[in-house]
């Protein structure tokens, strides 16, 4: 298996922490993504490392017993430590606040605290076996205030910090899940739902294990058109993922992942089923809006993209892995510190180790080795693993870092060795332009909303974010087309067909085509002497009118005489290029035509007499000169009451020339009354 075949990898710079051992306990906080290494109950030090901060937080605390759970509030303001099943201890990390610990006991009698979750920098939720309690921490008073509580029997709980939703497992079978949503001091109960359990042998009691459930948010939207109250708008869509080991349907033996969509309002709905086609031990991650399923037995992983088309049976959509199963790319443990000097070879890391713990969305922790990795998807290898270009585009367009990969796919499909057929190329262009158009529309409605002054009344109106999936004309031109047309070995027919296909696609999505694309078409046609084709394109206005294009056409006149006419037509249609038209006609010595044109549009009172007389003189046609001269004499008469030219017009030389040819008496006499 070549290196280019692995499409999943562990991040290059993992968070490193002290390995778990009898004196060093390791905790992970999903909200802040921090690893806590607590030595001897904190007495010999606590080291906290997050994925982003290069400077770990270290402190000491008194060893008051075994630490069950330890978490910072958001922004590391307050530390909460659970040491008993009834209480949680707090310690302020805010400057100027007392650092003395304070304690909160759970309110419900005889309840045991299963754990706690921070929902903001000062709000915390205790989950007990008898319900949940929502508190506000008042650090300056070193006390907590109960905001709300709810009683129900809890087997276990799960927290999704991205959407601030806590899921509680209730009932004997543990399979009825009760979600709660927290936001700015409020706790709201969402409709509960039941997970269907697979049929199990009668001897064993079926139950829903915490290990088989995960929560993840996917597909954050960036459009400003979403309603401000919409959950989706801020958090993306929340899914509860259930790993069903044995399918109830007898004909399918493999395990499945069932995706329940948990909307902000309304009931939870079973939406997708991911077919794994294998059994054994699995773990789930969500990376870049893809569901990654790791299989420990085969030490491979598969990915699913629920945005890709699957088989819809009327209520749920069935998906198969996007790509064949592959192992995560082999990983060498980097050697740091003094050991590096001793030229030790890097140690290969054991992948899919049983000591791995997986957290959402993309975290893999090896507590025994002291590493925290983020799982990443590599897009380049996928290009070759997914032969269907349309599906490949659908897949890539949903990924965060897709731009350069998509551009390279485009270049590849136009290369001689991997040339795709025109219908495929058309499909790819259409998919790109579909995304591009969506963004342009969002931009436009944003601009209109701003103009209408809605920005003040609705603070949630946000400028649409331009994701990498938006590939505009200049991207495609710069990275794909300009290099493509330069390729000598390409048959020109294919080059032109591709350019026209791109222009067709842009037009189909009603996107105005930039003139550099038109120039590219013209250049290619001219290079191959295909002037008649060019003529036909212009005739049907496929190449939109613009001054640069008209000038380009003018320059082609010596190779293709009709270009002159095409250029003039274009200038005429632009209706802002009247000066250019006059210049073109004068340069062709069509002085009379120029004069008639400018008169036709009513601009003849403002033109320079000298310019026209110069041009007329150059024709060496005395009668023409006479006509033009007389025209301006009449203009002078009409505008100033005298046929004479003013000194400012600098026509002395022409007056002299006129007299020389036609005599003094031919000059127009001032009309006298």
């Amino acid at each position, binding site marked *: 298996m070549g290196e280019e075949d692995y499409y999943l990898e562990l991040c290059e710079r993992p968070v490193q922490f002290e390995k778990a051992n009898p004196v060093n306990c390791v905790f992970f906080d999903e909200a802040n993504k921090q690893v806590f290494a607590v030595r001897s109950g904190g007495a010999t030090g606590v080291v906290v490392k997050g994925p982003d901060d290069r400077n770990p937080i270290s402190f000491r605390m008194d060893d008051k017993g075994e630490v069950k759970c330890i978490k910072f509030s958001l922004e590391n303001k307050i530390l909460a430590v659970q040491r008993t099943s009834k209480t949680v201890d707090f310690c302020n990390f805010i400057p100027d606040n007392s650092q003395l610990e304070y304690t909160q006991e759970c309110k419900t009698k005889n309840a045991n605290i299963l754990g706690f979750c921070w929902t903001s920098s000062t709000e915390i939720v205790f989950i007990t076996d008898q319900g949940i309690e929502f508190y506000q921490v008042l650090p300056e008073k070193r006390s907590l205030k109960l905001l709300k509580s709810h009683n129900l029997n809890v087997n276990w709980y799960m927290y999704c910090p991205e959407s601030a939703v806590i899921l509680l497992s209730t009932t004997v079978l543990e399979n009825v899940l009760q979600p709660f949503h927290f936001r700015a001091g409020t706790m709201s109960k969402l409709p509960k739902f039941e997970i269907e359990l697979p049929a199990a042998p009668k001897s064993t009691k079926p139950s829903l294990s915490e290990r088989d459930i995960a929560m993840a948010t996917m597909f954050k939207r960036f459009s400003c058109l979403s309603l401000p109250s919409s959950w989706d708008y801020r958090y993306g869509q929340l899914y509860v993922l259930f790993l069903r080991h044995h399918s109830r349907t007898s004909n399918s033996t493999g395990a499945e992942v069932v995706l329940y969509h948990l909307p902000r309002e309304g009931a939870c709905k079973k939406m997708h089923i991911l077919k794994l086609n294998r059994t054994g031990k699995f773990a789930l991650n969500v990376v870049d809006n893809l569901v990654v399923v790791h299989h420990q037995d085969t030490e491979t992983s598969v990915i699913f993209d629920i945005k890709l088309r699957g088989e819809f049976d009327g209520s749920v959509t069935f998906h198969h892995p996007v790509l064949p199963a592959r192992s995560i790319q082999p990983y060498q443990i980097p050697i740091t510190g003094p050991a590096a000097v001793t030229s030790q070879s890097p140690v290969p890391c054991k992948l899919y180790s049983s000591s791995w713990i997986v957290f959402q969305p993309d975290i893999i922790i090896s507590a025994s080795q002291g590493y925290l990795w983020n799982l990443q998807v590599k897009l380049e290898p996928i290009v070759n693993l997914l032969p269907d270009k349309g599906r490949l585009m659908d897949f890539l367009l949903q990924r965060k870092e897709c731009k350069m990969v998509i551009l390279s796919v485009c270049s590849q499909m136009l290369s001689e060795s991997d040339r795709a057929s025109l219908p495929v190329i058309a499909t790819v262009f259409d998919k790109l332009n579909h995304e591009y158009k969506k963004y342009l529309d969002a931009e436009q409605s944003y601009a209109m909303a701003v103009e209408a002054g809605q920005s003040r009344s609705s603070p949630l109106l946000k400028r649409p974010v331009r994701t990498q999936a938006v590939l505009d004309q200049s991207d495609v031109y710069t990275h794909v087309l300009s290099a493509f047309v330069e390729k000598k070995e390409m048959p020109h*027919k294919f080059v032109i067909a591709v350019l026209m296909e791109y222009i067709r696609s842009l037009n189909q999505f009603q996107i105005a085509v930039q003139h550099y694309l038109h120039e590219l078409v013209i250049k290619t046609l001219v290079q191959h002497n295909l002037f008649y084709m060019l003529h036909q394109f212009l005739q049907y206005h496929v190449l939109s009118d613009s001054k640069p294009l008209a000038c380009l056409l003018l320059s082609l006149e010596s190779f293709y005489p009709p270009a002159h006419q095409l250029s003039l037509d274009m200038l005429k249609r632009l209706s802002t290029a009247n000066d250019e038209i006059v210049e073109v006609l004068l340069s062709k010595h069509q002085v009379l035509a120029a004069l008639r044109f400018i008169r036709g549009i009513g601009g003849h009172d403002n033109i320079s007499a000298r310019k026209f007389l110069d041009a007329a003189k150059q024709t060496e046609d005395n009668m023409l000169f006479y006509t033009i001269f007389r025209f301006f004499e009449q203009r002078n008469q009409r505008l100033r009451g005298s046929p004479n030219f003013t000194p400012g017009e600098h026509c002395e030389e022409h007056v002299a020339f006129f007299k020389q040819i036609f005599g003094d008496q031919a000059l127009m006499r001032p009309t006298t009354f």
Partner: protein
Amino acid sequence: MAAAAAGAGSGPWAAQEKQFPPALLSFFIYNPRFGPREGQENKILFYHPNEVEKNEKIRNVGLCEAIVQFTRTFSPSKPAKSLHTQKNRQFFNEPEENFWMVMVVRNPIIEKQSKDGKPVIEYQEEELLDKVYSSVLRQCYSMYKLFNGTFLKAMEDGGVKLLKERLEKFFHRYLQTLHLQSCDLLDIFGGISFFPLDKMTYLKIQSFINRMEESLNIVKYTAFLYNDQLIWSGLEQDDMRILYKYLTTSLFPRHIEPELAGRDSPIRAEMPGNLQHYGRFLTGPLNLNDPDAKCRFPKIFVNTDDTYEELHLIVYKAMSAAVCFMIDASVHPTLDFCRRLDSIVGPQLTVLASDICEQFNINKRMSGSEKEPQFKFIYFNHMNLAEKSTVHMRKTPSVSLTSVHPDLMKILGDINSDFTRVDEDEEIIVKAMSDYWVVGKKSDRRELYVILNQKNANLIEVNEEVKKLCATQFNNIFFLD
């Protein structure tokens, strides 16, 4: 601007008069090098009518030779193009070096009853326009060349014998299709009528053509027509011009009848697995289900000046959309190829044809140009050969019908001759018989002829009317008033 009052239209027609239109008297092709001594018939390559006695043929050819030779002394580069006599007019054309084509046309005749009851024949010497019939003669050559290649090529391939065979085979049929009585200005232009289309539909057609050329990889050139009007030509302009002429005056009219029938009964419905579509071959196999169907396509010759390409012409049509696929003559299209073409092109072309039709109707409704304007015009652009006429009704294989009086058509021809003499842009306004005005305008290689019928209009009003017409019909081109 020049205004002239022409006394065209010589009053009401006398009831007892009988008219005979111009007619083809003879048509011959010769090469003086093939029989340098006078009296030899070797130099005659083709002679119509063939029944003419040998000596007369030789005499007539000799006369032409002498005239050309004689006039050459006055104008070495431009020898005589035509010879006017009382009864007829002769037109000379030398399309290839030393190969001469001559067409003799009898002047139109008016037969009158004299007072004593005897018929008196009057030849109308001034009726025929040189430019029109010279163009017809040149077109004869172009059409021959399209299907047979140059004279020289035939000589190279099989000597005089082959050339004579080819000429005989081609002109025997072709001359019957010349309808000299209805030749007019449009024959001078030899223009192409383009189908008006919006950009998006045009791009769809482009896309279709490119895809077809890719999947039928032996196609060298493609042309696309709708409603007998051109939309796309992969051929060069001059080749397209004559191919267009062939398609619109010969091939398409011959297939009008079956098309009307075909619309209700798709012939291919019984073909298993075939999508229903209206595509069919206008050249080549008639029935694709017949295993013995002949896949023979007409051969055409293009770019004869440089690359000299010989091609098979495949014309395939679905509803009003016709595509011409031209493939290299060295490749022989098989029945399998034809079936493949039919299965790929047929369904797509059917969809495209209805798209075009729909789009065209939308555009027509939007522009609202349903009602007939009170003037008629002919427009021609030398640069792209675009031609537009509201004077001519639908062209049929036999005659091109005009909706105006022949005398007016002649005035148009006269104005055109005037335009040819000078390079400059100009405008000519003619007051014709009764209430007719004829206006000719020439601006940067474009010509426009307008026929107006307004009671008591004066020159200024006519001028205004034409300006208005230009502003509405030709506002998107640079056309000087």
